[in-house]
């Protein structure tokens, strides 16, 4: 299992990697009724933020705990760090109560990143579900700055219901401005919804990309990714051009505590972004 090949370490990291850097909340934005985005700025005004799309930070709420949250912002912006998370447990619920000016601890960035140096001229299909769009947003910003690198870019996004769709405004903007095909579907619709209803899988089957010359990036609930991978396989996309972002609980994010072990690797350092052929022996195996 290869360890991280590229990793930018934030400046000012002390010698003990278990000690967080202090940041302040700059802005809190509610995305849906249970999902929010925090914009953070470093307390040390000179520190430059640097990360690669797909990486995550461990965020610490004083006295409550620390959890891994994907970085969801624009990697070209070095003054503000953005994280989007669902409010699901003790720590994220406490995070949701933070206000501008409050402090928060940050360790990272950690983990592997989405592939950024693919050959020119490929199609790119991005398949996401629910909160899974958050770790993919940085790669979308990155791609928009290099649109000519790819032929077709297709973004497929599944959400629970119309009110749970993330980043609606940005999706519209990218669709219009950057020649990005966006198809959104929901599991259940309210009356008045005139978009797709159903799961992401049939969208994958019909999406306009060339399977022999495509890279696929997937992030969402594991069961959604399993079915999406089956569709990609049916269409002939090879295993070494499919990338998935896996998730596990973490304690140290340094490769020691063992909690995030997933088969032969650690999600904190061999992932979270995996090329599919690296995990094909354990992917989908029950309780691995």
């Amino acid at each position: 299992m290869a360890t991280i090949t590229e990793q930018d370490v934030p400046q000012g990291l002390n010698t003990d990697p278990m000690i967080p850097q202090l940041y302040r909340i700059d802005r809190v934005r509610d995305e849906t009724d249970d999902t929010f985005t925090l914009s953070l700025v470093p307390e040390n005004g000179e520190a430059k933020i640097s990360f690669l799309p797909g990486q995550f930070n461990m965020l610490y709420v004083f006295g409550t705990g620390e959890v891994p949250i994907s970085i969801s912002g624009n990697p070209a912006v070095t003054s503000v760090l953005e994280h989007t998370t669902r409010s699901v447990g003790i720590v994220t619920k406490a995070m949701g109560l933070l206000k501008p000016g409050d402090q928060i601890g940050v360790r990272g960035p950690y983990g592997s990143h989405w592939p950024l140096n693919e050959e020119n001229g490929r199609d790119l299909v991005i398949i996401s579900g629910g909160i899974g769009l958050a770790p993919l947003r940085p790669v979308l910003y990155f791609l928009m700055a290099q649109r000519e690198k790819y032929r077709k870019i297709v973004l497929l996004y599944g959400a629970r219901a119309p009110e749970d769709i993330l980043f609606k405004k940005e999706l519209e903007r990218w669709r219009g401005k950057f020649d990005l095909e966006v198809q959104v579907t929901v599991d259940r619709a309210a009356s008045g919804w005139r978009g797709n209803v159903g799961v992401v899988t049939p969208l994958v089957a019909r999406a306009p990309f060339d399977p022999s010359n495509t890279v696929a990036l997937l992030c969402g609930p594991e069961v959604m990714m399993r079915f999406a991978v089956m569709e990609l396989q049916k269409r002939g996309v090879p295993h070494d051009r499919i990338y998935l972002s896996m998730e596990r609980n973490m304690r140290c994010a340094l490769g020691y505590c063992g909690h995030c072990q997933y088969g032969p690797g650690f999600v904190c350092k061999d992932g979270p972004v995996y090329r599919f052929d690296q995990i094909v022996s354990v992917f989908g195996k029950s309780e691995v």
Partner: protein
Amino acid sequence: MIHTLESVIKEHPFFQDFPEEHLSFITGCAKNVQFPEKHFIFLEGDPADEFYFIRGGMVSIELVIPQLGPTTVQTLGEGEILGWSWVSPPYRWHFNAKTLKRTRALVFDAKCLRAKCEEDHDLGYEMLKRFASIITARLDATRLQLLDIYGHDH
């Protein structure tokens, strides 16, 4: 190039490897049709004597639920097939099908096709085989929707 009815049918993935000898009969059962936006293609309870290939547009499969009103459970778009209730008795639609946009389709005379399938079991098997795949795919999708995988509590 003129897209004849026969060429459209032949090129559709559903009819891949369909025996030649049955193709002209199938083509005979089909005709082009267009629906405006917000049009009910069929209603729950109507006799299920057709099925449709959607060539463009979007169709919503909906159920009317007391207190919730009409609720979409699935949408279908270009290249997808609408309607399988013609296959088994009592041959009645279980849902409403309503267009969300202007929609073009091929409509197949299922009543005629049913009769022919009874006579010619080879044809019957070819049709059922293909509809079985469509139904299993819908079942998989429905199960995933039921699991509420993006939901609030896991």
